[in-house]
C-alpha cells in the first residue's frame, strides 16, 4: 500500500529530529502538527509529554535537560508568545539547549482562523528581537535543516526555532 504524502512528510520530520539527537518532546497540538505528534507518540526513541501550556513545556524541557535529555518543544507559533519569559529567564539564562518546532499559522495560506493572523505578522520580528536563530521549512528538500537546527541547539546550548510552513504539505510531487 502506498503511504499518503502527508504521512511521509511527518515521518521524515520525526526522523530528522531523531537524527539531530532529540529524545524528549513536549507538545501542544495544531492541525498542521497532528501527524507529527501522532508519529512521536508511537516513537520509542522519544519520550513524549503533552503539556497544558507552552511555558510549562519550556520548564519540563529544562528539567529533561538537567536529567541529560535532548529536548524539543512542538507548538503552534501562536503559542510561542506564551513561552517568552521562560525561554529567556530559564533556558537562556542557564544556557540550556532547546529546539522549538513551530507550525506557522496565518498569512496567506488560506488561514480560516482570523486570530492566527496577528501572531503570524509578529512571529519573525519576535524571534529576531529575542535573538533566537530560526529557519523556515516550506519544501520537503529542506527537512534536513531540522536535524542541523537540533544539532546546533544541543551542541551550542542555545534555543533554535524551526517554522514549518503550510506549503510544505501542499508541495506537488
Amino acid at each position, binding site marked *: 500500500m502506498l503511504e499518503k504524502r502527508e504521512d511521509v512528510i511527518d515521518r521524515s520530520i520525526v526522523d530528522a529530529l531523531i537524527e539531530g539527537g532529540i529524545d524528549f518532546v513536549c507538545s501542544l497540538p495544531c492541525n498542521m502538527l497532528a501527524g507529527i505528534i501522532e508519529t512521536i507518540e508511537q516513537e520509542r526513541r522519544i*519520550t513524549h509529554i503533552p503539556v497544558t501550556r507552552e*511555558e*510549562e513545556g519550556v520548564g*519540563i524541557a529544562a*528539567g529533561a535537560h*538537567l536529567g*541529560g*535529555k535532548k529536548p524539543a518543544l512542538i507548538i503552534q507559533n501562536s503559542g510561542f508568545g506564551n513561552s517568552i*519569559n521562560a525561554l529567556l529567564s530559564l533556558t537562556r539564562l*542557564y544556557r540550556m539547549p532547546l529546539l522549538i518546532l513551530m507550525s506557522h499559522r496565518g498569512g496567506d495560506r488560506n488561514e480560516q482562523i482570523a486570530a492566527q493572523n496577528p501572531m503570524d505578522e509578529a512571529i519573525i520580528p519576535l524571534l529576531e528581537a529575542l535573538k533566537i536563530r530560526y529557519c523556515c521549512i516550506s519544501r520537503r528538500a529542506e527537512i534536513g535543516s531540522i536535524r542541523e537546527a537540533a544539532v546546533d541547539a544541543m551542541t551550542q546550548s542555545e534555543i533554535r526555532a524551526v517554522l514549518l510552513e503550510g506549503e510544505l504539505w501542499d508541495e506537488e510531487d
Partner: protein
Amino acid sequence: MKRIDVLRVLLDLAVKMEGVIISNLGFPSRELYHIGDRAENFYMLGSMGLASSIALGLAVSVPGRRVIALEGDGSILMNLGSLATAANIAPPNLTILIVDNEAHSSTGFQPTFTAGVTDLEAIARGAGIPDAVTVFDEKELRSRLEDAIKSERVSVIVAKTEKSWENAPVIDLDPVTIKNRFMQAVRSGLEG
C-alpha cells in the same frame, strides 16, 4: 511554622534520602541557599511558576532519582496546569512541596487567593493527585514529607506557614554554575 522551618525539614530529609530539589525563585531559594547550599539544589532565578514543571521533566528523565519541587502558593497558582500534567504523567519519584503563606512574600506579602477561598490540596486532588495533604506543624510535615519522598506515587504536600522571611543573602552563584554542578550531582548520584 515559618518557611525556614519547612526548608530545614526539607533539606534534612533530602540529604538523608539523596533527593534533589528544584527551588522556586526569590526568598525560598535564598533561604535554602543560606541554610544549606549543596550541588543537589537547583535554584531558580527567574521563570516563576515553573518549579514543578522543571521537576517533572527531571523526574521523568532520571527515574532513579527522587525529585522534590519546592513551590510557593503564588508560584503554583501561576501554573496550575502543571498539577494536571504531574497527575497524568505521574512520575513515581516526584514530590511537590508547596509552602503556602497565602502571600507573595518576595515582593512585600501581597495576599494570594489562598488567603481567600482557594484550597491548593483540593486543586491537587481535583487535578488527579490523591496523595495530597495539608500540614500545619513541623512534626506532621516531617512525617508526611518523608512518606511522600519514599512513596512510589506522585505526591503534593501543602505546608501552611506564617508570613515570615529570613534575612538571607542574594545567591551569589552564576546560573551556569548552578546548572553544571546540579547536573553533575544528578549524574554521580545515578552512578553511585
